[in-house]
């Protein structure tokens, strides 16, 4: 029994240590990212490669806009049905629109969109950079005197940081629309009344905190996916493993940081 317990504690200890090392390396990459994004251009060095940034933006948008719409519309619809089920008990089905719009913009829009992006864009970033790593392309960059961080990492993180909040805003809208369709067709609510409920309940703070969260998630996805790509070792198999880890870690990071952000917003914008 004691042996098993001590074994358990050792395992926990080792995993904690590994996690701390990982977090240390991740923050090291974050430092490099900040340096190359803000400080290096001031020192006269080429920071962001604009061409590659635009390419990434287009790629990310194309890659994910359809799935984001599909998923947020479904979430909005489900939300309307679930809300109506609860509200019916109080005879308040009328307020379905309000509930959908507030939950969508404050919480579900940002988180669902980010998870889709982590799976879609984050995974492809890790796979791409990881493949470059194992095929010595990253080393080739280094020996050409081109540091990989501004060349590979900065354009990708910045592109996610811009694309994800935009997709979130669109996703919020589509989600609300999904709820609206259910409201007027499935629940038999009046269209005008539903829309009025929807937009009366919504205040700018709801939308803005949601967008702010999505920005935080974007930076996390960008850092994790590029970090995992750059740390690939061991051939094609290593790329596969890193890609899976990248998505899992991103999703965990999104949910944990959502908890923190929501807590912080609750107290500073009551």
């Amino acid at each position: 029994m004691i042996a098993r317990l001590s074994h358990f504690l050792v395992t926990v200890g080792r995993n904690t240590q590994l996690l701390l090392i990982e977090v240390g390396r991740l923050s090291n990459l974050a430092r490099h990212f900040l340096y190359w994004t803000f400080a290096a251009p001031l020192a006269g060095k080429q920071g962001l490669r604009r061409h590659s940034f635009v390419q990434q933006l287009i790629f990310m948008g194309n890659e994910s806009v359809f799935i984001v719409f599909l998923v947020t519309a479904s979430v909005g619809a489900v939300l309307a049905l679930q809300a109506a089920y609860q509200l019916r008990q109080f005879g308040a089905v009328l307020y379905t629109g309000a509930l959908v719009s507030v939950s969508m913009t404050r919480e579900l829009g940002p988180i669902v969109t980010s998870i889709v992006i982590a799976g879609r864009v984050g995974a492809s970033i890790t796979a791409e950079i990881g493949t470059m790593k194992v095929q010595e392309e990253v080393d080739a960059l280094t020996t050409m005197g081109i540091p990989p961080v501004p060349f590979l990492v900065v354009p990708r993180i910045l592109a996610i940081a811009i694309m994800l909040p935009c997709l979130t805003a669109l996703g919020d809208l589509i989600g609300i629309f999904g709820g609206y369709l259910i409201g007027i067709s499935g629940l038999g609510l009046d269209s005008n009344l539903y829309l009025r409920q929807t937009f009366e309940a919504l205040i700018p703070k709801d939308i803005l905190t949601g967008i702010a969260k999505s920005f935080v998630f974007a930076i996390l996805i960008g850092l994790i996916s590029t970090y995992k790509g750059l740390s690939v070792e061991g051939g094609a198999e290593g790329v596969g493993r890193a890609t899976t880890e990248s998505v899992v870690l991103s999703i965990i990071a999104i949910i944990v940081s959502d908890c923190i952000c929501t807590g912080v917003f609750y107290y500073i914008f009551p």
Partner: protein
Amino acid sequence: MSAVIQVENLQKWFGTRKILDGINFEVREGETLVIMGGSGCGKSTLLRTLVGLLQADEGKVLIFGEDMAHASEDKKNEIRKKFGMLFQGAALFNSLTVGENVALPLKEHTSLDEEIIRIIVKVKLELVGLTGFESLKPYQISGGMKKRVALARAIALDPKIVFYDEPGAGLDPITARVIDHLLMDLTKKLRMTSVVVTHEMNSAFRIADRMIMLHQGKVVGSGSPQEIKESKDPYVQQFVRGEINGPISFKETKEHYLKSIFGGDVGL
């Protein structure tokens, strides 16, 4: 002739294993130096340490008199503009076309016009015998062509030194010879210094002005191809002739192997 690269007491460890054990040699201007040695003797490690992909644990790597091993990252990047490197697997960027691959160092390090860069790219591709391949993607060309494109990319900035990691690896004998000829041709025409890592004896003797031989992280022989051929050193002898019996043992026991990996004693 003056030395463009001087390596002094270079040491590199991976964990507890010493891979490079006090390497000393120099590369003179305009010559082709071949680094030979058996599989796993640390040739690639040496090359990667020279170009600053790996950090040396001890010793100096002077390239044009500047110490690559102790330079800041900015300084290293400055020095790196003066040399090119050909990787074993070519390491072309798969998302870029052949032309864009060759153009990349020019775009990054010069402020030349698009049009001028296009012309330079054309000239460099012509030098390696690939005229009109600019718009193909790396996956559309053969392994030998990839190596040549990578060579064109390595010489894009007219470097004084080019490092080659196993230039003939994975190519058929004829294509490998073509690469050797290109290497010799470019070294002469463009007055470059070449440092080549290889274990292909034929190719090594064909291209080398001087050779050094590594064994277990040490330089065990050096000299002109003729001197190496006539060397009395048993390691060099065995390697040059490709014999199975000799001081370099291939019949290692598992204990031996693990010991060589982990260094010191392992509780077996």
